[in-house]
């Protein structure tokens, strides 16, 4: 490969097939994953997924990139002030120009969640506000029980990263985090610990997709 030349879609896809095998890569590139909230969790989840070959990602947030986000979120300093949906869209396509990235700049609430998330196979809850997290999870579990849901709670502070776990709650609902470390207790959010939790969520998404291949 000559430096500066972007490989073709086929070349990139074949490189992923070599890693994952034909069947898994076909699934990875087609399954639709929605990432709700594009902060420390969501921006990392989306980057991890698109690198892993998940090519159908719907990114959702209402907020703009702030200087306080740069410590842990996947934005560049010159993107401060841009809508996170637009900035992350650009960054994801820079990593993987052949990915199909859909962006929706909206504040999710009970009223619009079913419509916005209608086409997702797997939903990642990646909000920062505890009540918004609960609202999304309750809404998806009640109104969209057919969806896989990967949520998170507890990743603030400097505590041990080994306390962060993935727990299966019901057949299609998973929780990641330590369950306790609350930003409201005065603990800041540290890039490393938030990224570990985002890694748990993204990995569970990949496991779900891999499991669906094995069950075919």
């Amino acid at each position, binding site marked *: 490969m000559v430096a500066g030349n972007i490989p073709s879609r086929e070349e990139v896809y074949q490189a992923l097939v070599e890693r994952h095998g034909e069947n898994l890569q076909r699934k990875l590139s087609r399954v639709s994953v929605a990432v709700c909230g594009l902060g420390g969790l969501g921006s990392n989840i989306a980057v991890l997924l698109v690198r892993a070959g998940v090519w159908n990602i719907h990114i959702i947030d209402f907020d703009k990139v702030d200087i306080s986000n740069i410590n842990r979120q996947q934005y560049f300093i010159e993107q401060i002030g841009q809508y996170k949906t637009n900035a992350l869209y650009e960054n994801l396509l820079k990593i993987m120009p052949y990915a199909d990235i859909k962006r929706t700049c909206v504040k999710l609430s009970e009223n619009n969640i079913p419509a916005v998330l209608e086409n997702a196979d797997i939903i990642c809850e990646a909000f920062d506000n505890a009540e918004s997290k*609960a609202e999304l999870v*309750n809404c998806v*579990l009640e109104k969209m029980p057919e969806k896989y849901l990967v949520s998170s*709670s*507890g990743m*603030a502070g400097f505590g041990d990263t080994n306390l962060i776990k993935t727990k299966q709650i*019901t*057949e299609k609902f998973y929780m990641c985090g330590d369950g306790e470390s609350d*930003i409201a207790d005065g603990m800041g959010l540290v890039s490393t610990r*938030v990224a570990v939790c985002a890694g748990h969520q993204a990995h569970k998404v990949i496991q779900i997709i891999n499991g669906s291949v094995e069950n075919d």
Partner: protein
Amino acid sequence: MVKINGEKIHADGKNILEILADMDYSEKRVAVELNKQIVPKSKYSDTTLKDGDSVEIVKFVGGG
């Protein structure tokens, strides 16, 4: 006896709202599963626990 988050507790006859208050959970920051089924928030006060029930209370804290 009712199993709440894996622990056996005398909660028979109480509803979900009472349990959340007893255990110091904020109603707006939880999701509650009863025998692996989500309990809609609107049903918390009408959902009375009985012997053998298994309840999972998922708590949400801030940060992300």
